[in-house]
């Protein structure tokens, strides 16, 4: 009988990779291209605008419709893309099945938590501005 230690994602019939390989590959590339564009936009506005603003001015800046839309896109695309990246790393390097499943659940919970904090913060900001 083969020990858990020997099993890889390929031998695991419940693994996600071989079930949704092509769509994951496309989602990874599309989110990567979006993330690159949005992060370059954010680096640019950080250097040109954000560094000279105080906290009150920053609140106003983040409430602007264009900035709010692009920043929300940046965070959601970023969380989604790096969830896919991290999943790939966990699936490649953690060989124990239980630890692999546990890590994937933990990572998903942390990223979902971060997303919830982000949404809550924006709602709070919009209501109080």
């Amino acid at each position, binding site marked *: 009988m083969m020990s858990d230690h020997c099993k890889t994602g390929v031998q695991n019939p419940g693994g996600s990779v071989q079930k949704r390989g092509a769509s994951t590959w496309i989602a990874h590339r599309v989110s*990567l291209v979006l993330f690159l564009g949005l992060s370059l936009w954010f*680096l640019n506005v950080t*250097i040109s605008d954000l*560094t000279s603003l105080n906290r009150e001015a920053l609140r106003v800046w*983040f409430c602007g419709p264009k900035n709010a839309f692009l920043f929300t896109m940046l965070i959601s695309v970023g969380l989604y893309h*790096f969830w896919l990246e*991290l999943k790939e790393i966990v699936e490649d390097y953690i060989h124990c099945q239980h630890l692999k499943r546990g890590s994937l659940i933990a990572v998903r919970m942390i990223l979902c938590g971060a997303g919830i904090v982000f949404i809550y913060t924006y709602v*709070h900001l919009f209501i109080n501005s």
Partner: protein
Amino acid sequence: MKNKQRPLSPHLQIYKPQLTSSLSIFHRFSALIMLGGVLALIGFFYSIAMKSELYACFSSAVAMLWGKALLSIFILFFWFFVGTSLRYLVWDTGRGFELKNVYASGFFVLIMSVVLTAFSVLALWGKLA
């Protein structure tokens, strides 16, 4: 089974370090740093909208040398991530796989990430000072 302790792919421990493998490993590492950056950005955004004490921590950190150094290292990893990601996107089209081109694009990514980091950091430090 006798051979259950054999190393599982991707064989990091028996791989001779070279530019190609190092860039691959550091690309994954930079993806983890980018995820950290997205989470830090959510934290910064939260501090702007909700917690003035946390915002004071962020703004005093970037005013100090270690904060600037940390930000500069993050920007270096950012440009490295942008470069290697674009390299992977080119590879996705089936181009650039000749050994000579793989090394050339690898060196190009390294040099460009250092140059772009220098430009961004100088621009950012000029604003933060």
